[in-house]
Structure formats: C-alpha cells, structure tokens
C-alpha cells in the first residue's frame, strides 16, 4: 500500500523554545485507520496542525498525496478534512449553511445532494435548519465531522473526536469511521482512549514528548508486545516462591496465587514444565487463568520508558 501522507524529519519549535515535535518521521498508508496515541502534550495536535497548515513547521517536510503542504499548500489542503479537538462552530448559523460554507471554502461547487447524504449518514439531516448553538454536545461534534466531510476529503484527521462523548455516541462515531474507511477515506485519529484504538485502528502510532515511539500494525503490536500472564490458584496459598521454582519468572499474586509471565508467541512457553514441577514441590493447583496485556498496558509501558529515558538524559546533562 502506498503512503498518502509522508512526514519527514518534522521539527516544530515554538517561539518560547518549546520543542513540540523533535524530528518526526511517519508514513500514513492510503485507506488505513491510524490511531495516534499519546499523553497530553505529546505533540499529537501539533503534528495534525502542521499537516493541515495551521502551524508552520520549523524544519522538515510533510506531503499529502505527493503535494508538499507548504510549497504546494493548495493542492495538499484540498485533500484534507480536519475535525478539531475543540468544538468550534458559528452558533448563529444553521447546520446546512456551515456545511455549505466549508464545501465552498475548499473550492468545491455547491452540491446540496451530497451534503444531504453526509448529514443523513451522521443522523443530522433532521437538524439541517437548526442553529448549531441549539444542538447537543454530541451533535455539535457530528456537525464538525459533517463539515470536514462536506468537501469530500481523501484524508480525514480526527483530533480526539470522542473526548467527553458518552459511550453510545462513541460507538456510533466508530461506526461512522468504519463506514468512511469502507468508502476509501484515510483516517488519522488521535485519542487518549486505548479502547478506541483497539476497536477501530489498523495501525497504532505512539507519540510522547514530540517523538514517535513506534508505529505498528495493531494486531502485530499486541501479539509482539503483549505478554501473557498465567495465574495459578493453589489449594494452599503461598507467601514466597518455592526455592525449586525460582528459575521461572514467577511472582506471588493476590490471595497467595502464583503469577507466571510468558511470551505467548514464543516457541516454548514453559507452561507444561512449570505445571508438572508444581506437584514435585508439593503444591496442588485448584484453578488456572490467563490474561493478555491490553494496548493500554503496552502504551503506558512505552510512555513510561520514554519518560524515564528522558529524565536520565536530562540528569546526565
């Protein structure tokens, strides 16, 4: 699959000296859903803003559909739809008119039939003549999506589209995103919600302190980095790991259970041997359960490692 968005060595340094992006490289494939995960202040919004032309890069390049976003801004921007993090709407205008405005602003001739289809898809057609200020928070967010879609972009940036949105609406938003992907739109989504990335993304990028820590297929990421845990409940709970079992990666879990960590993708997990040795040291098991790390645990681990690394680097200086 070819990349529709290419970010090369992107640096953004603000006037106050803060470096929001420290040489970011990223390729976004046509037609995929990429979830960009990162804590607050990681650089997610700056990366999107630089791609959309709202923030000027200090150095580095970004191309969209082969067009440089600075030198060939007009061609690049025509391809991009942006749903911002903050709900920003002209409250005095109607839903239909704000969508018409965006379509016109992006240089597309008016096409009310198309806007009708977008509004219908987002369950907003009934509200087309309502002023945006009269809508609920969830509806306003959908209006922002409708506006971004009204000029038929090939790449859609959703900057935390479900922040502060209730569960039902969030699921509805995911369905919309899936539908857009089916229509061939490339979607880049930033989010705090790991479950969101787990539910809809094809690939996951993790960004922290202005650097991309990894970009990986979601499934591969989870299987590669996803450590599994085997929890062994014993007839008689233990306080310490028996001497004979110390060569295993064992810990004492709650209620005196034994917790064994292993790599589920490895050739030999060591489970069979561990279980057979239990009997030898006089332990009787009454139950077994396994647990796989979630994307959230992987994410927290990566970000934590990055922060520790940065602190050490700062201390060394």
């Amino acid at each position, binding site marked *: 699959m070819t990349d529709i968005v290419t970010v090369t060595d992107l640096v953004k340094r603000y006037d106050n000296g803060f470096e929001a992006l420290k040489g970011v490289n990223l390729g976004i494939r046509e037609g995929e859903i990429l979830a960009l995960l990162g804590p607050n202040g990681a650089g997610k919004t700056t990366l999107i803003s630089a791609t959309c*032309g709202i*923030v000027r890069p200090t150095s580095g390049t970004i191309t969209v559909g082969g067009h440089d976003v600075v030198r060939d*801004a*007009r061609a690049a*921007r025509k391809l991009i739809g942006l749903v911002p993090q903050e709900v*920003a709407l002209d409250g005095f205008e109607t839903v239909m008119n704000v969508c*018409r405005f965006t379509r*016109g*602003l992006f240089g597309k001739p008016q096409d009310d039939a198309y806007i009708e289809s977008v509004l219908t898809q987002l369950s907003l057609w009934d509200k087309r003549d309502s002023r945006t200020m009269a809508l609920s928070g969830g509806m306003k967010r959908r209006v922002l999506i409708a506006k971004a879609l009204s000029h038929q972009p090939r790449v859609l940036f959703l900057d935390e589209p479900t922040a502060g949105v209730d569960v039902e609406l969030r699921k509805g938003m995911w369905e919309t995103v899936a539908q857009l992907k089916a229509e061939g739109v490339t979607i880049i989504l930033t989010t705090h919600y790991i479950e969101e990335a787990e539910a809809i993304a094809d690939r996951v990028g993790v960004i922290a302190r202005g650097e991309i820590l990894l970009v990986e297929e979601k499934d591969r990421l989870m299987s590669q980095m996803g450590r599994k845990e085997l929890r062994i409940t014993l007839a008689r709970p233990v306080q310490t790991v028996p001497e004979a079992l110390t060569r295993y990666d064992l810990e004492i879990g709650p209620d005196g259970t034994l917790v064994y960590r292993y790599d589920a993708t490895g050739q030999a997990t060591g489970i069979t041997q561990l279980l057979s040795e239990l009997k030898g040291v006089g332990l009787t098991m009454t139950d077994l359960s396994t647990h796989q790390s979630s994307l959230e645990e992987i994410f927290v681990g990566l970000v934590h490692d990055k922060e520790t690394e940065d602190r050490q680097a700062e201390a060394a200086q």
Partner: protein
Amino acid sequence: MNPISIWAIYAFEMRRFFRTFLQSIVAPVISTSLYFVVFGSAIGSRIDQVEGVAYGAFIVPGLIMLSVMTQATSNASFAIYFPKFVGTIYEILSAPVNYLEIVIGYVGAAATKSLFIGTVILVTSFFFVDITIQHPVAMVAFLILTCLSFALLGFIIGIWAKNFEQLNLIPLLIITPLVFLGGSFYSASMLPPFWQAVTHFNPVFYLISGFRWAFFGLADVPVGVSLMAIAVFTLICLTAVWWIFRTGWRLRE
C-alpha cells in the same frame, strides 16, 4: 485565484449582515435622522450656510463618511475576530485559499455592507435636505475607496485584537475622533489657524474634503491630494495585510 472560495466567505459574511437586518440597516437610518434633526435643524438654523451651501446639506458627506468609516472598520474587524474568538479560524487557515482570497472575501463583504449603509444614509438625507451631486462618478469612487480602505484597516484590527476590548479600542479612540475632527460637520476654514494646521495631519480630513468636493465642488484641499491620501492609506493597509499573512502574525504559530 479561487472564485468559489472567495464567494463562500463573501456570501457567509453577507448572510450575517442580512440576518441582523435591524441592527444593520434600521440603526444607521435612525442615527442619521437624529443627526439631521440635531445638527441640520437645531444647530443648522443658526449657522445657515457654509461656503455657500446650506448647513444641512453641507454635513451630508461628513455624515456618510462617519458611518461608512466606522461601519467598514467594525464590520471587517468583527468578521475576522469572530472566527478567532469561537475557534472556527482553524477552517480558514487549513483551507486551500491564499491570503488574497481571504482578504477579498472578508474585506469585500465588509466594504459591501458599509457601501450599502452609506447609500441608505444618502437616500435618507434626500428626505431632509436638497442635494445635487456635482461629480457623481467621483462621489461613488471616493465612497467605494473609503469603504475598501477602512475595511482593510478593520481586518488588520480584527487580526491584531486579542479580546473584545481591543477590538473596539481603535475604532472608538482613534477613528471616531479623527472623523469628528476631520471636518465632518464643519469646514476647516472655520477653525483658528493653529487648529487648521493640526487638521492637516489628520488623514481623514483629506477623505472628507475630497468626498465633499464630489458633492458640492468645494474642498479644503485640492481633490488630487485627497485621492493621493486615500491611495497611500490603502497601500499601507495592503502592505500590512500582506505582511500579516506572510509572517502568520497572530494567525499561525
């Protein structure tokens, strides 16, 4: 040049104008009528004539200029400040439009609105005083140029302003006094020599003088100087807008 985008901005802004019909059209008609009652009838009955023109008619160009300048400035400044305030500016900045298209859309709409108001005031004045316009083409040209240049100024103020107080600061503290002291309601020759000299440092004085010449054929300064003044003013505003978009000042980080 992208005419569809320009039209989108222009039409969106004009819709706001007609949505607030009362404030946009009725208010200037009422305030102009009040000026005619106060200045034209009450004070004018004691002044009689200024340089051979009935006082009521004499103040018409100044009145139109007063409204046009303040309306063009406030409309354009609000038009670009409002998206900054509510956050919808992201859309303008990320759209495939260049600065010239943005300026034509916003400034064009603000200029159209003020031109419309200027025309409404002119028509209203016909109900109060007898006026014959000696140079109608020049009158229209001056009016359009003033609308455009002050809308440009307003656009700059709207980008500069960080809050509503700043938005009103320049129109209230600078433009209104300059218009009042620029000979809206009197001829500069009626002032003592010192204040006459001071008036010559007021750029608005040249615009009002030229506009009045278009009406009555009489002016405080030669009409060529007035034209030059408005051309220089427009050029300064255009240069400032060009610089703002080139550097992204108060727009792009």
